[in-house]
């Protein structure tokens, strides 16, 4: 009833090609941004900002980065956490070693360094494909963590390899509280998501998709394979690098290299699979699911404990959570292999016809 595009005529090419062609979508996204930017900061508390919203946003950005590489360009990667680690540690070093560097500049430097590392580890993709490539990207995962652990320069020679994020300030305005950190993350993530959405509608994005769908055919019609694949690795790693820097500066504060293990790579990969491969929205939905679900399970198990009055040991609870988490992922893959974004799409189609489906 409400969700109709009837009567919305496009009279210019620009109007025809806009990101949200349906008025209701534009209103919804505008409302969402207002809520996230104004309402949430007014009503949220510290727990919500620092434990739920900020990690959700940061991991969305990482998932977005991986989605550019895996979902759009079709190159499977298991090294996401390594690129995040590069971003985090290089942003730290940039602030440390370059005087008067604005914090956003440090994030960009972190992202660019991650992009450079991404290009290096993307080189095998010119020769290797599919699962072989996925395993090969594990080399990035292990090598980068090893290098950060071994080479003292990265952590400014701290004995345990742990770095503490410096204080942040933008134009002299200090960013200290969880609310400000949340807002900073939100703005960066929203801008980068917009950039990604537009990039994927451009020539570059279409070249990515051509390579994903069939790379031999793509090279036959004149898409430069090397440039496209390496660009995909570079852009994806840039996103992951910025996400890593935000992970360090806005979420964790104190970071050890072990925060970026293979587990994190898998979690980000889960996000795009559950959310939807090759979908910007899917990255956010997947990140929300993967970050919120363990918290939900935890709350649930605690309430069961207090409700039934039984004392469960920590090990039992965490193992049961792992079983449910894994089982649910398998369940999701079986019922909707295309992810939550596809469910959303189906819901929208239904909504258009509702209440007269014929």
């Amino acid at each position, binding site marked *: 009833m409400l969700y109709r595009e009837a009567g919305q005529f496009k009279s210019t090419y620009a109007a025809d090609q806009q990101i949200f062609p349906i008025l209701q979508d534009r209103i919804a996204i505008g409302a969402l941004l207002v809520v996230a930017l104004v309402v949430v900061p007014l009503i949220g508390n510290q727990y919500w900002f620092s434990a739920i919203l900020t990690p959700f946003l940061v991991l969305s950005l990482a998932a977005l980065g991986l989605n550019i590489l*895996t979902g759009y360009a079709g190159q*499977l990667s298991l090294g996401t956490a390594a690129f995040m680690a590069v971003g985090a540690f290089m942003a730290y070093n940039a602030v440390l070693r370059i005087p008067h560097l604005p914090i956003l500049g440090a994030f960009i430097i972190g992202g660019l360094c991650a992009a450079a590392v991404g290009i290096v580890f993307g080189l*095998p993709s010119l*020769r*290797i*494909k*599919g*699962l*072989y490539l*996925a*395993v*090969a990207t*594990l*080399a990035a995962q*292990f*090598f980068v*963590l*090893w290098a950060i*652990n*071994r*080479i003292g320069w990265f952590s400014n020679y701290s004995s345990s390899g742990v770095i503490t994020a410096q204080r942040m300030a933008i134009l002299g305005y200090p960013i200290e509280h969880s609310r400000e950190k949340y807002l900073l993350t939100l703005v960066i993530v929203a801008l980068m998501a917009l950039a990604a959405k537009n990039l994927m509608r451009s020539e570059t994005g279409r070249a990515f998709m051509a390579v994903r769908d*069939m*790379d*031999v*055919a793509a090279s*036959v019609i004149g898409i430069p394979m090397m440039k496209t694949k390496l660009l995909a690795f570079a852009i994806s790693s840039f996103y992951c690098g910025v996400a890593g820097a935000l992970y360090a500066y806005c979420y964790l504060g104190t970071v050890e290299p072990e925060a970026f293990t*293979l587990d994190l790579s*898998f979690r980000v*990969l*889960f996000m795009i*699979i559950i959310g939807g*491969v090759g979908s910007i929205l899917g990255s956010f939905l997947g990140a929300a699911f993967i970050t919120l679900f363990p918290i939900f399970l935890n709350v649930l198990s605690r309430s069961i404990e207090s409700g039934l009055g039984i004392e469960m040991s920590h*090990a*039992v609870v965490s*193992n*049961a*959570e*792992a*079983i449910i*988490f*894994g*089982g649910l*992922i*398998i369940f999701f*893959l*079986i019922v909707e*292999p295309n992810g939550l974004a596809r469910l959303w799409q189906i819901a929208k189609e239904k909504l258009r016809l509702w209440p007269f489906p014929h």
Partner: protein
Amino acid sequence: MSFFIEVLAGGLLAGVMYSLVALGFVLIYKASGVFNFAQGSLVFFAALTFVSLTERGWNFWLALLATLIAMILVGMAIERTVLRPLVNQPPITLLMATIGLTFVLEGASQLMWGSQPHGLELGIPDVPIEWLSQKWNINISQFDVFAAFVAGVLVAVLALFFQKTRIGRALRAVADDHQAALAVGIPLQHIWAIVWAVAGFVALVAGMMWGVRNGVQYALTFTALKALPVLILGGFESIAGAIVGGLIIGAGEKLAEVYLGPYVGGGIESWFAYVIALLFLLVRPEGLFGEKIIDRV
């Protein structure tokens, strides 16, 4: 010189241990095209079940039999509940499903048997062979040789099974071409169930060997990560590749750790295997023994 031989032999024998895990991957990939990331968890599950049963006073053979039956049932259950509904999905979805499976398997095994580490004894001590160390001053662990022997027997049994039995031939037919196999009347789903059962058996053998070496503990699940470079080096579809790949990776890793490690600060074992595998892949992108990839538009 004797030191070099010692390092080389140690590396080769360690490589055999990697091959044991890689074999389980290859079996399943060959037959069903699923890259089974959960093989490491299966190894952990098998070893933990076995060691917990023996610690509860079960006889060695009885515990072995019970674990074997459990592994076969688990393998079949995985095939039935996880992979059958996911037939014809893209490889990445299948991979993610098996990663989800690792959570379930690891959670279930620790829920059942607890998460404290166990020691495992098979009656073969992990000490250097005496006459070798006395005569040539080469230290090679008795247990490593035993593990290599077990791996050899395992491969021989698998080869016999694949070449000579009716089921084995059906397995190879399925690996070759699902549809053609279906057309000549091979029951695909039985075959897949059998493959998973065999993979469970291989996981049990690998779990016992690794359990003696490193103790039965959660870290056992990381053996899967050790097997991955072996796999891409040897090719996903080849049993011979898993063995040769394991030997190359094992030897290369140990030699690099000893001769190259001191210059770069040590601890390079975590990634050097991948570098070796990558170098080989640059020459042969489908692994040493993998099926040649032919691209058509």
